[in-house]
């Protein structure tokens, strides 16, 4: 000890540092112990999978599965960083639909997920699932994710308020019918303002899905930006007067408790509602149980499509997974099996994309919250009509640009009304689309 020049304290520190370093090298922190590790970002999914896992584990003695709940933004950023850096990643991962495209940014061979195309065709899933739902997880014809859902959209409405105001949902077939009702019942001023529908005048949320309803979107199947095509121009020029000017029928206050109050107090009479959101109301707006009901979206034209889609999740198997067959089997069990299907559905209201599951009694059962309506039946009737959306690493950018165009058009409409408005929408969308294309042109992949 006396030979160490800097004293016994420094020596002790050095010894501790060396020992802890050796220990960490031997047993790294975060080292995976389970056979399969799965990252999910949704608490509902996490809880559902915990229920399904015992059956899977019983079939595979000795196998362990570690399901980890990670925040959506954190999951996307961490997984992306881990994949490109080539460090440890989970075996399987759920990715939210908006984030999916960012994983397909590089060359095809650099995508961090296994190419599932052949497995999907071999297993028959290609024919068994709503085919449009593969599109968001596809790059250059290769499929890298299994769709968790279809998320068809309907219109949830305050049934009591509709009855009080003499609104007959059965007689509303088209958006023109709906807007006519809206102009009659909406009150934008006074002590108790009231709007027929929740629509945002600042963010692209509802505008986006109404664009999907018309067959539009941000990108086409080849990844080209379509933000300024004629469908988008028509949709924007039609949408803005619904949220701007004196004859508006829509408004948006935000989510969470504000939305709860807005619905309970009759500020908002109807809301565009995909299946997952219907469950949110059951939890967050519980006082409205038995007073809410669901109807298909009004069509653009008589006999047209009465739905759209909002949100989505994929399950991918990472290239670093040591047991891809086992991971595939687990994905099948979690997403497409009848195992605990009733439980899964009741906890989420999410319609699985596999069509033969839709006849399950749990999915077809009436729901007290929705005035006894058969929620699953309504959504499963709409689901086959959902159109594909296409992935792009620039999807988030395109959404932001659509929002900017919306805000500019709302300001223009408030200032100048209908005069030259459609031409303004066209110019503004072109500007937004060009900004997206400029960014895309920088991507050499």
């Amino acid at each position, binding site marked *: 000890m006396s030979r160490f020049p800097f004293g016994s304290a420094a020596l002790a520190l050095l010894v501790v540092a060396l020992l802890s370093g050796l220990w960490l090298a031997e047993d790294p922190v975060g080292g995976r112990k389970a056979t399969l590790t799965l990252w999910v970002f949704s608490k509902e999914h996490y809880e559902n999978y915990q229920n399904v896992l015992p059956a899977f584990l019983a079939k595979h003695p000795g196998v362990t599965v570690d399901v980890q709940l990670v925040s959506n933004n954190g999951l996307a950023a961490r997984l992306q960083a881990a994949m490109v*850096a080539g460090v440890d990643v989970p075996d399987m991962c759920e990715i939210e639909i908006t984030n999916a495209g*960012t994983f397909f940014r*590089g*060359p095809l061979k650099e995508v961090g997920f296994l190419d599932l195309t052949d497995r999907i065709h071999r297993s028959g899933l290609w024919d068994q699932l709503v085919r449009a739902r593969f599109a968001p997880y596809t790059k250059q014809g290769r499929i890298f994710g299994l769709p968790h859902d279809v998320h068809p959209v309907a219109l949830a409405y305050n049934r009591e308020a509709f009855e009080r105001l003499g609104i007959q949902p059965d007689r509303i077939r088209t958006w023109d019918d709906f807007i006519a009702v809206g102009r009659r019942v909406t009150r934008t001023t006074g002590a108790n303002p009231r709007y027929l529908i929740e629509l945002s005048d600042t963010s692209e949320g509802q505008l986006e899905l109404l664009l999907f309803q018309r067959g539009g979107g941000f990108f086409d199947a080849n990844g080209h930006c379509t933000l300024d095509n004629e469908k988008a121009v028509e949709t924007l020029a039609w949408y803005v007067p619904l949220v701007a000017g004196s004859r508006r029928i829509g408004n948006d*206050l*935000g989510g969470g408790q504000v939305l709860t*109050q807005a619905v309970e107090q009759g500020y908002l009479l109807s809301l565009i509602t995909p299946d997952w959101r219907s469950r949110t109301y059951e939890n967050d707006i519980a006082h409205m149980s038995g007073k809410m009901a669901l109807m298909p979206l009004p069509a653009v034209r008589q006999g047209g499509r009465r739905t759209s889609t909002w949100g989505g999740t994929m399950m991918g198997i990472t290239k670093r997974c040591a047991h891809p067959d086992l991971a595939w089997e687990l994905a099948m069990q979690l997403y497409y099996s009848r195992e605990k299907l009733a439980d899964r559905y009741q906890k989420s209201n999410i319609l699985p994309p596999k069509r033969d599951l839709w006849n399950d009694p749990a999915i077809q059962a009436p729901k007290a919250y929705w005035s006894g309506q058969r929620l699953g039946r309504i959504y499963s009737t709409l689901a086959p009509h959902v159109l594909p959306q296409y992935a792009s690493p620039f999807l988030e*950018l395109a959404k932001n640009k659509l929002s900017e165009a919306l805000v500019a058009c709302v300001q223009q409409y408030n200032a100048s009304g209908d005069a030259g408005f459609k031409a303004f929408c066209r110019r503004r969308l072109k500007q937004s689309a060009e900004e997206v294309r400029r960014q895309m042109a920088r991507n050499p992949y």
Partner: protein
Amino acid sequence: MTTFKIGRRRADGSTPLPGGAARRTFRFQQRLAPYLFVSPFLILFAVFGLYPLVKSILLSLYVTNGPRDHVFVGLSNYRFLFSDPDFGVAVRNTAVYTFWTVFLQLPLALGLAILLSQKWLKGRNWFRLAFFSPQLVGQVFVGVIFMVLYVPQYGLVNHAIHAVHAGFPLDTKWLGDARLVMPALVLASLWMYVGFNMIYFLAALQAVDRQLYEAAMVDGANGWQQFLAVTLPGIKPVAVYVLVMATIGSLQLFELPYTMLQQSAGPDKSGLTIVMYLYQNGYITGDLGYASAVGWTLALGILIVSLIQMRVTGVWKGASA
């Protein structure tokens, strides 16, 4: 075998001079010791500071798909940056935010500090704690609180204004109206940082020589003249420090708008800051090379602004004199 004998005393009390190998060891240790002592910092700085800095400079010359997959583009990222309208908006928003926060924050913080340094004020310590406390919770927490306060139709802010001015619409969207986003952000940041900067000014005020005030009073100076001639010069070094740090902090704004605007840039990009622009490009679009170019441009901008501030306030000249 050489043993460590330096300082060992003889029986007569004298200390022998080290000789031969012992002297060489002693000299070697003397030369080596400083390097060994600073080596932990140097190693950590080299690995976690210097290497990322150098790497990010190189990265800014590439379009990337993560660190492994990149294409050299020279200064193209910088050229694109200066021609990108979004970056222009981010710079403008950041500058507006910085201007308003700094020029409202500092006078308010100084005013509070002067008020809370008055001996006649009862419960001064409690007030100091209360004004400082927002700093304890961080920007994300403050962002969430203000998000709730600003809620349209049911939020406290709208109801308070409506109570005073009945014509004010309850469904005013502070975070949903492009014209109101920046005032909403500035207000939230004032709530958070005024108390924090007040602490610096309180400390500075206590260090001002009381005899100078007495001399000023003897000379017939009133309160305002004392403030200008005694207080301000006395707290100048701290005031400049607070000014520079508040400016740097404002130029790096991210968490507050990111939380309040729910991970978006707000309506019409009204809440888009430079760091948010960097984050979007680096972590949403996945182009770390371009994000590095944004980062270095911001760092250079902060350096220039800080140097100008130090030059204008005379601190730089004072330091070199």
